[in-house]
């Protein structure tokens, strides 16, 4: 016979329902998990194609200087010559390459725009030298790229040679975007982000509104930009400055990309290590301003030619200005100047502030908002699809999210951009403090620290990084605020100052001071001030109006304000000659406000989702409970009236375990009231399995059990009429015997009076030990306690599994009495045992099981009573069998241990034995004993013996 093939065996194995179910469940789970992982990890099908190209364009003042640019093009698959798509020119930040904006390019391409990226001249693999967005070079480069877009059939055109195009860029790229829009009317929309209006003002700010030539040199930022030209600015700026590039917005720098560009640079190596890849013109200018700390008119002219302020009146492309609130390089005032200049032409302008900038990346919510606004603007003015508001949105930085370490913020919206003076009622705060004399140290050292380029106020936010040097700072404080105020815009204040030299360099800061005295400098922003023509004494000093850095900041009630006027700041070029100034506050501090409404935060969406989920779960729970109740009621109401008075009816009961082992097979028997039934069988006969099924612990695989006519299933209420002790005790080991029984009874929820606890304890016979913890009990004591527990409430059917195991002989005898007594008034006892004697002495009825099947059933008298078989001890078995073969009254004879077993004709009524002995003796066979065979023992011993083989 051949073994079944493997598939056949597998099929056989699978045909077992439970195995099949498990395999199917496992497979479904595995497929779902695999699908989930694939879905999460699989790159979503790209709806665009991309290609890189080194493009040579003719640029320069005369349009005849070739330069090679490293470009990238992303074309949506939907864009064809039949259905051309609008385009976006996407510029990168200072120190970056086209790769820095790849993420945003892909996103825009996914939105249906042909996206042109390129590495600006002087960076990465592009040729040429850095001209700082020189209109003759960088801007002309970009115009040639517009020409290129105009030549592509898949790009939509307004007219021949005029592509439908928006320009998007951040910082350096933002400056380029504005300059391009000013120089080339083909641009349809601009989204400049965190960029400048006037480079000279950005690097030589003067907060009294003075010109750049009298500004204070922003030394550390300038050093990062110019001084490191031969190096990677990104390497110096570090990750902290990689401002919004996490959102895909262009950033002034991007980690990684420039470094890989190094060895492959197509540009000629810098001839002058001093100048790096800057043009000679820029380099000369920088060396000059960095040495003197002052902007010469020629330097200012050079910087201004590279500033959007010079072309604002020519910009007709609708402009979305995104500016960072955490930006000590290009503060909010730069965007304000751009907005005013462009709006003056009647060109649509929208302004948005967000919590990032050159000093921080901003909150996730803000990055999402910037991305949304950018796309909305492009869709409206480039794709000409959809509309968009003109509202001004900004963000109130709320601190740090401790679990992610990121800045958190709340977005606000106002109907229109109000400018830096605010549109609401300004709050006037009275500052107090006497005139103070402060010293400017020689060499400008030590200096106060308020901003670290690229880190900005990140340090100040957690407190402690802002440092003022004693003796160098004059402070003017306010009282505690009576109510909170949201400052949106640039606070202003009037100061009077006197100086022995007639000139003063001052840094004005507005701190918020908490009730604990800790000062916070919002965003670490400082207003530098160079005053000239000052008198020697304060008496003669005229008030100077100082515009503090624009902020969006919430001042809580109870906080105070402190205006600090310092002579030094680490980030700026400082006078080197020691001197002293006198400073006094001249009037109130004015805090601009803007009536604004909070934007719906994504948090509220999640909260609503949460509420919805809770409601759904509650509903599901209620429905589930209802269904369960209905089903329970339906099941429990089915009673078999025929067996309503029978304690136990078992019909065709089978149990096959998952591993295929059949513990019980087609078992059928009935127990009537008043019986003490013994379930007899060797170990492994299926007794305990039967009892477990009787208790509803395991599910029969076939047939049924009825107790008082109720079909047994898990938790059937009729089980409450059954007391059980099956397969070992189950107590809480840390409780005493009494407590165990008490808690057990309490768990039934039935009245205490019904428990008959005292009687049960008496049966247990544990004496004072019942008050000891169960874990100290011997096996026998636990056994007796378990039997007592089974008898609690005097159940109608008492089921005991091997109750006498572990009991000593007197206790066994006593237990027999108890069980027999228990069955007297209509109650029933079911005892399992593997000991024949036990059953004989205790039970009225017996069921014998072996290997899961019923072998015999009946009254003990019936089953164990004398049968018509006798065992005859003979000296010669063969002779005896020969004699008996033909003997009268003998139905069958066979040899056995120590003799022959003779089945007699039952009709002879006992006289058969005499006859058998007589015939044997007459036949010459010696008989030494004749003993009756009891059928049960016979069967049982055979079974047990059979088990031993």
């Amino acid at each position, binding site marked *: 016979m051949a073994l079944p093939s493997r598939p056949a065996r597998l099929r056989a194995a699978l045909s077992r329902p439970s195995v099949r179910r498990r395999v199917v469940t496992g497979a479904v789970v595995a497929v779902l998990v695999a699908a989930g992982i694939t879905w999460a990890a699989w790159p979503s099908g790209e709806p665009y194609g991309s290609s890189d190209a080194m493009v040579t364009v003719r640029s320069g003042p005369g349009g005849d200087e070739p330069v090679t640019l490293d470009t990238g093009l992303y074309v949506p698959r939907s864009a064809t010559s039949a259905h051309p798509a609008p385009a976006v020119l996407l510029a990168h930040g200072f120190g970056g390459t086209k790769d820095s904006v790849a993420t945003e390019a892909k996103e825009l391409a996914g939105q249906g725009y042909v996206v042109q990226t390129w590495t600006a001249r002087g960076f990465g693999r592009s040729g040429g030298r850095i001209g700082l967005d020189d209109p003759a070079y960088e801007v002309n480069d970009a115009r040639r790229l517009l020409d290129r877009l105009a030549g592509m059939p898949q790009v939509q055109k307004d007219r021949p040679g005029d592509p439908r195009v928006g320009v998007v860029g951040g910082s350096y790229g933002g400056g380029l975007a504005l300059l391009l829009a000013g120089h080339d009317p083909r641009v349809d929309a601009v989204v400049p982000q965190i960029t400048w209006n006037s480079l000279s003002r950005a690097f030589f700010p003067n907060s009294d509104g003075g010109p750049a030539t009298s500004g204070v040199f922003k030394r550390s930022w300038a050093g990062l930009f110019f001084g490191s030209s031969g190096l990677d600015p990104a390497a110096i700026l570090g990750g902290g400055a990689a401002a919004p590039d996490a959102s895909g917005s262009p950033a002034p720098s991007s980690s990684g990309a420039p470094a890989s560009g190094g060895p492959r640079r197509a540009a000629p190596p810098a001839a002058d290590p001093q100048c790096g890849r800057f043009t000679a013109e820029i380099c000369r200018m920088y060396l000059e301003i960095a040495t003197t700390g002052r902007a010469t008119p020629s330097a200012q002219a050079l910087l201004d030619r590279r500033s959007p302020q010079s072309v604002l009146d020519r910009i007709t492309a609708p402009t979305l200005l995104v500016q960072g609130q955490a930006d000590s390089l290009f503060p909010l005032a730069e965007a304000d100047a751009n907005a005013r200049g462009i709006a003056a032409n009647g060109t649509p302008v929208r302004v948005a502030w967000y919590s990032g900038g050159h000093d921080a990346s901003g909150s996730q919510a803000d990055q999402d908002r910037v991305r949304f606004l950018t796309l909305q603007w492009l869709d409206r003015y480039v794709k000409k699809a959809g509309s968009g508001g003109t509202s001004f949105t900004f963000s109130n930085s709320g*601190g740090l999210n401790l*679990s992610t370490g990121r800045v*958190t913020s709340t977005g606000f919206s106002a109907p229109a951009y109000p400018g830096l003076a605010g549109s609401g009622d300004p709050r006037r705060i009275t500052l107090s403090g006497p005139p103070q004399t402060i010293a400017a140290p020689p060499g400008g050292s030590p200096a106060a620290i308020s901003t670290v380029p690229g880190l900005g106020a990140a340090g100040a936010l957690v407190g402690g990084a802002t440092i003022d040097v004693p003796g160098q700072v004059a402070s003017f404080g306010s009282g505690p605020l009576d109510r909170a105020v949201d400052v949106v815009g640039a606070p202003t204040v009037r100061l009077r100052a006197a100086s022995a030299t007639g000139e003063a360099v001052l840094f004005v800061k507005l701190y918020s001071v908490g009730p604990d005295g800790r000062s916070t400098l919002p965003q670490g922003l400082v207003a530098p001030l160079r005053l000239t023509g000052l008198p020697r004494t304060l008496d003669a000093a005229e008030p100077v109006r100082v515009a503090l850095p624009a902020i969006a900041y919430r001042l809580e009630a109870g906080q105070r304000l402190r205006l600090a006027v310092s002579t030094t700041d680490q980030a700026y070029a400082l006078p080197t000659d020691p001197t002293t100034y006198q400073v006094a506050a001249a009037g109130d501090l004015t805090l601009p406000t803007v009536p604004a409404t909070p934007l719906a935060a994504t948090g509220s969406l999640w909260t609503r989702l949460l509420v919805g989920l809770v409601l759904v779960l509650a509903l599901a729970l209620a429905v589930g409970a209802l269904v369960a109740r209905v089903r329970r009621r339906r099941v429990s109401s089915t009673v078999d009236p025929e067996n309503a008075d029978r304690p136990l009816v078992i019909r065709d009961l089978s149990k096959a375990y998952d591993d295929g082992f059949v513990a019980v097979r087609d078992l059928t028997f009935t127990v009537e009231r008043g019986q003490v039934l013994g379930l007899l069988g060797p170990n492994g006969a299926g007794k305990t399995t039967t009892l477990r099924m009787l208790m509803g612990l395991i599910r029969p695989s076939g047939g049924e059990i009825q107790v008082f006519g109720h079909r047994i299933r898990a938790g059937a209420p009729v089980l409450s009429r059954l007391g059980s002790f099956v*397969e070992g005790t189950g107590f809480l080991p840390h*409780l005493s015997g009494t407590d165990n029984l008490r*808690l057990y009874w309490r768990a039934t929820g039935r009245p205490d009076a*019904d428990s008959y606890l005292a009687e049960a304890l008496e049966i247990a016979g544990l004496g004072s030990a019942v008050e000891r913890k169960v874990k100290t009990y011997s096996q026998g004591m636990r056994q007796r306690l378990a039997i007592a527990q089974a008898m609690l409430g005097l159940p109608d059917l008492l089921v005991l599994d091997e109750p006498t195991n572990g009991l000593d002989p007197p206790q066994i005898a006593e237990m027999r009495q108890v069980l027999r007594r228990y069955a007297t008034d209509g109650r029933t006892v079911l005892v399992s045992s593997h000991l024949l004697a036990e059953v004989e002495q205790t039970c009225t009825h017996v069921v014998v099981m072996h290997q899961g099947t019923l072998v015999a059933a009946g009254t003990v008298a019936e089953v164990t009573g004398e049968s018509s078989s006798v065992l005859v001890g003979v000296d010669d078995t063969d002779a005896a069998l020969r004699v008996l073969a033909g003997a009268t009254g003998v139905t069958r004879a066979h040899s056995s241990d120590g003799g022959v077993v003779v089945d007699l004709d039952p009709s002879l009524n006992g006289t058969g034995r005499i006859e058998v002995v007589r015939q044997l003796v007459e036949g010459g066979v010696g008989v030494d004993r004749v003993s009756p065979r009891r059928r049960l023992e016979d069967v049982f011993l055979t079974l047990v013996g059979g088990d031993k083989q």
Partner: protein
Amino acid sequence: MTVDAAPGYQPGRTLSFTTELRRQLTRRRTQYGFGFLALLPLLLLGAFQLGGPDDGGSQRGASLVDVATAGGPNFAAFTLFASATFLVVVVVALFCGDTVAGEASWGSLRYLLALPVPRSRLLRQKLLVGAATSAAAVVLLMTVAVVGGTLVYGWHPLRTPIGAEVAPWTSLGLLALATGFLLVHLLIPGTLAFLLSVRTDQPLLAVGGAVMLYIVSNILDLVPALESVRFVLPTAYNLAWTGVFSSPLQYEDMAKGAISALLYATVFLLLAWRAFARKDVVS
């Protein structure tokens, strides 16, 4: 007329909450669990007293340490931070993971089921008591922390790591909110332990398995490559409650965390119910 059940027996009255509570509260492991959580704040207090001024390490979230001794509410916030990711998880896993498997290992489970306590009700009562004792243990921890911290450091406003101050009574509200979120989030280890408890007869396996899976999730949480799928990890939002110490209050992550916890708990509990309803109880 037949008798459906023993007189006085009603399925809905079996294994009442107080009975199950007594069964659990008398257990040593419950008492030790409560004891440890009550002791932890005192240990921390002692450590701070012994240890002198801190050196101002300020890593992710560590800033709660910097302000831990600013007052009672601050100390309680730090205690929560120190215990939320592990100790409390272990205790909750113990209370919820030992409850069914423990009965199985004693052998008492089958007697409860034969009472009969309907299986669904048994799970419900066990879960309710496990949840109630877990919640009580966490509340005990926070109460001891607030009281102990206040006795040692005084009843001062809560100083948040970002420098804001919150009046003491208001800060108790914030702490209650943070604790409340933590309790909701603990549904994940709790129901996971409960599921394992139903599936196995060994309490150690249930408790240890739940804690182990939680730790694995915590480790995966640290892998940057998984950032995009981080939100599905059960531990993704386990520190979201620190949002209450931001100004304005950051509840987005807490809402996400609560959703995540409820979804996980629903799945775990459905699996537990399904498994137990069909289970052959042989222990």
